[in-house]
């Protein structure tokens, strides 16, 4: 039996077809099928507890990422709220503080957004020099349809006062020991524009692992703003303070020298995602003059991705890929590229995306000591035969 590649995230070419091929090679009859459970449905677990697990790239090939293989990122062991007893408190700079049950929320006008959720630290392991933290590579990202109520509608119901500028957000997960609480805030202008309090994910009740019964959805912004197990929102005049606002989730205002830590005054909060593509499928080998298909996804903090290109000469020349027809504001676009090799030998393909504001994915990501927002060109190596 041919030895299958180790099932890590590097196994980009590991497909159902290969699994069949591996099985068929050793079988005594021609008809073989997979065992009952689909062992392709899997997560790459980085941490046993709290759970941190990324999605293998070969499962990030559909417009909507299925809930069960969607990446999981917990700061500490969460206390899952009991959905029947759960309440959402709205207080702070409002005329009428509210306490709402899940049924109350479900009775309000609904809204949906299909958009990307990416951990701020996705790709941290690819930064050089190496930085501490969960060593995410490619798959702390997914695209889902989030359904719930508009933050705007909820604040209108509560009577938002004029002076409020920041929405303070609180979840039910409590830190252990003396770890600072994960209290956050997000600019009111942003969440009033398109923020949701979601209780459904891809048409199912929001799973507990993903913040159920309800979480904040901030389209186009990094996951640190998407408070899970949300139980209180509070408009205030000033931003939230504390470790996870003042130290964590900060990014350099301007690039510096890799490996040289930025000072606090040189940093600004992580907000929008950067334009980024990734390669999810590529053949291990190809032939000169014969087209081979490369696929991937691309997204940005800007509402749409307008172009994805592929290069086989290290970025000297680029050819446009075909964009998938599905797109929504801040959702990813799937793309495919029919690559016809021009010469034999090991060939490295790169991809880059351009967003609707004209931002182009850079060759190198901006190094920062927390390893946030990695978005360098992805690459894949294929063996081209004559």
């Amino acid at each position, binding site marked *: 039996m041919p030895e299958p590649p180790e099932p890590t995230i590097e196994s980009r070419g590991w497909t159902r077809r290969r699994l069949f091929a591996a099985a068929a090679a050793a079988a005594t009859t021609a008809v*073989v099928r997979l065992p009952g*459970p689909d062992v392709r449905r899997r997560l790459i677990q980085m941490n046993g507890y709290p759970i941190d697990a990324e999605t293998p790239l070969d499962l990030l090939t559909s417009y909507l990422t299925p809930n069960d293989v969607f990446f999981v990122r917990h700061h500490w062991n969460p206390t899952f709220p009991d959905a029947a007893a759960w309440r959402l408190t709205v207080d702070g700079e409002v005329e009428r503080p509210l306490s709402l049950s899940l049924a109350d929320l479900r009775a309000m006008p609904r809204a949906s957004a299909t958009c990307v959720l990416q951990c701020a630290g996705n790709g941290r392991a690819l930064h050089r020099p190496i930085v*501490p933290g969960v060593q995410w590579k490619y798959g702390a990202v997914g695209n889902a349809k989030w359904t719930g109520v508009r933050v705007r509608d909820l604040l209108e119901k509560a009577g938002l006062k004029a002076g409020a500028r920041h929405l303070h957000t609180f979840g039910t997960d409590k830190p252990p020991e003396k770890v600072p609480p994960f209290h956050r805030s997000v600019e009111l202008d942003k969440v009033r524009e398109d923020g949701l309090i979601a209780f459904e994910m891809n048409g199912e009740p929001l*799973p507990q692992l993903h913040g159920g019964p309800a979480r904040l959805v901030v389209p186009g912004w990094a996951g640190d703003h998407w408070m899970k197990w949300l139980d209180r929102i509070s408009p205030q005049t000033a931003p939230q303070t504390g470790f996870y606002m003042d130290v964590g989730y900060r990014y350099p205002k301007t690039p510096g020298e890799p490996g040289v830590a930025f000072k606090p005054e040189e940093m600004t909060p992580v907000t929008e995602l950067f334009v980024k593509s990734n390669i999810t499928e590529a053949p291990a080998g190809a032939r000169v003059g014969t087209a081979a298909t490369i696929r991937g996804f691309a997204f940005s903090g800007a509402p749409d991705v307008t172009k994805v290109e592929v290069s086989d000469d290290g970025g000297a020349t680029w050819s446009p890929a075909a964009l998938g027809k599905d797109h929504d504001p801040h959702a990813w676009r799937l793309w495919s590229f029919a690559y016809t090799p021009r010469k034999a030998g090991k060939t490295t393909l790169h991809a880059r995306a351009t967003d609707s504001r004209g931002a182009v994915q850079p060759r190198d990501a901006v190094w920062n000591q927390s390893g946030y927002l990695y978005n360098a060109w992805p690459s894949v190596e294929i063996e081209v035969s004559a």
Partner: protein
Amino acid sequence: MKGNWGSSVFLLALAGAAVRLSGSPAPEPNPLPLVGTQLGEFPAGPMKVVADQACLRCHSADMVRQQRLTEKQWTAEVTKMAGWGAVVPEDQKAGLIAYFVEHFGPDNDSFRPVVAQPPPR
């Protein structure tokens, strides 16, 4: 090696797939460990008990095992975690940092993430 355990299970699963024929009965249980199963431990040695006591109340050893940090970075991490409540006796701190640098220094290539079964739907 413990970190590879998930992969080994997976290879067994593939071997199982190879002999499974069309029309076979009953679905088999998913052979992968359920996501959230802790599999990795700190390496053996006199500092293991210190690391267990300092770290495991809040997170599994995996969080440490995947790092590749310099002595300076480890010193900063251990100091931060002690401030957050990790129990690190003052006379053990230098030894713990040295143990982390030895096993999880910049050239640490021993960590393998666990291939895990997704949560039930």
